[in-house]
């Protein structure tokens, strides 16, 4: 299709979609209204389950099956990326040399790293009490480890990042979520039912299975993001084609 024709088709489609969407918006309830039936029920259910952060209650209790699907999407895409970014025939790994890092940047990085790591762990641990949880904290923890690459060099990052271990943790986090769900079945209730004692409202151990599922997600997300970034870093810094001129491909 020529660029011109594509632009025509695209413009027609965009205009029609815009018209449809704008017409729909005029029928929407006004922004900021007070009618949220599902939300109100979810808040009541969260309080009844002694979970102070209602979002965590929806994520890990009321709609925990969505989160299982979401974790599986993340898990699958990590596995998919590992498969797609594998070292293929005709490629070799080249260790990147040590990098010169300005002393100020190094000091700053090494100072910030443990702080970020702690913040991440705190965010995971308090998922049922305050904003945040396994997902947000997991990403922060995984990203904080990569400050080592900025502050020192790639080799230093590789030393604290045994990939095999993180892949094991990735699978374990996913399996733990599934098995915690099965615990509800074994206890005689439904899959992913919150059958543990609910504890005292607003304490770390409140919410029944919520903190456990939250922790499983934290483990999975941390290791998933580490493995994901490791493969992108590996492609960008390490993997080169063997003939040095071209990366495999049709000519190979």
């Amino acid at each position, binding site marked *: 299709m020529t660029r011109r024709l594509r632009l025509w088709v695209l413009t027609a489609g965009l205009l029609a979609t815009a018209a449809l969407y704008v017409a729909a918006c005029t029928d929407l309830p006004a922004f900021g209204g007070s009618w949220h039936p599902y939300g109100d029920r979810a808040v009541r259910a969260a309080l009844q389950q002694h979970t102070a*952060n209602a*979002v*965590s209650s929806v994520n890990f209790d009321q709609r925990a099956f969505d989160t299982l699907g979401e974790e599986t999407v993340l898990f699958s895409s990590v596995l998919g990326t590992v498969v797609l970014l594998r070292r293929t025939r005709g490629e070799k790994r080249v260790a990147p040399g040590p990098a010169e890092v300005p002393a100020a940047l190094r000091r700053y990085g090494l100072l910030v790293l443990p702080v970020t790591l702690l913040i991440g762990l705190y*965010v995971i641990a308090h998922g049922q009490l305050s*904003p*945040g*949880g396994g*997902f*947000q904290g997991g*990403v*922060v923890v995984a*990203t904080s480890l*990569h400050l080592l690459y900025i502050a020192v060099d790639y080799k230093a990052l590789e030393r604290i990042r045994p990939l095999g271990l993180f892949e094991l943790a990735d699978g374990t986090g996913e399996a733990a979520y599934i098995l915690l769900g099965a615990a509800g079945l074994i206890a005689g209730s439904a899959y992913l039912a919150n059958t543990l004692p609910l504890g005292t409202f607003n304490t770390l151990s409140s919410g029944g299975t919520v903190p456990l599922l939250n922790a499983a997600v934290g483990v999975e997300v941390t290791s998933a*993001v580490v493995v*994901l*970034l490791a493969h*992108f*870093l590996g*492609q*960008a810094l390490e993997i080169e084609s063997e003939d*040095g*001129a*071209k*990366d495999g491909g049709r000519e190979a």
Partner: protein
Amino acid sequence: MHDALIVVVLLLVAAAATGAVLQRDPARQAVVLSALGLTLAVLFTVLQAPDVGLAQLAVGSAVTPLMILLTVRKVRRKGRRE
């Protein structure tokens, strides 16, 4: 006051999104995307959704742009050596 704040942040989001599309160089686009992630995080916080804001901050303004930059680096490195 709060309403005005929401309007301003919404317009910033629209501008950042448009900028991210119009910036055709992928490395620079990653920076604009990072800014979009930041404005979205602010918007979510203003809309009383700190959980989502935190996730958006971590993913939208850090992990996604980082992956894009690494991809750019890989693709460019290949191109240079050809």
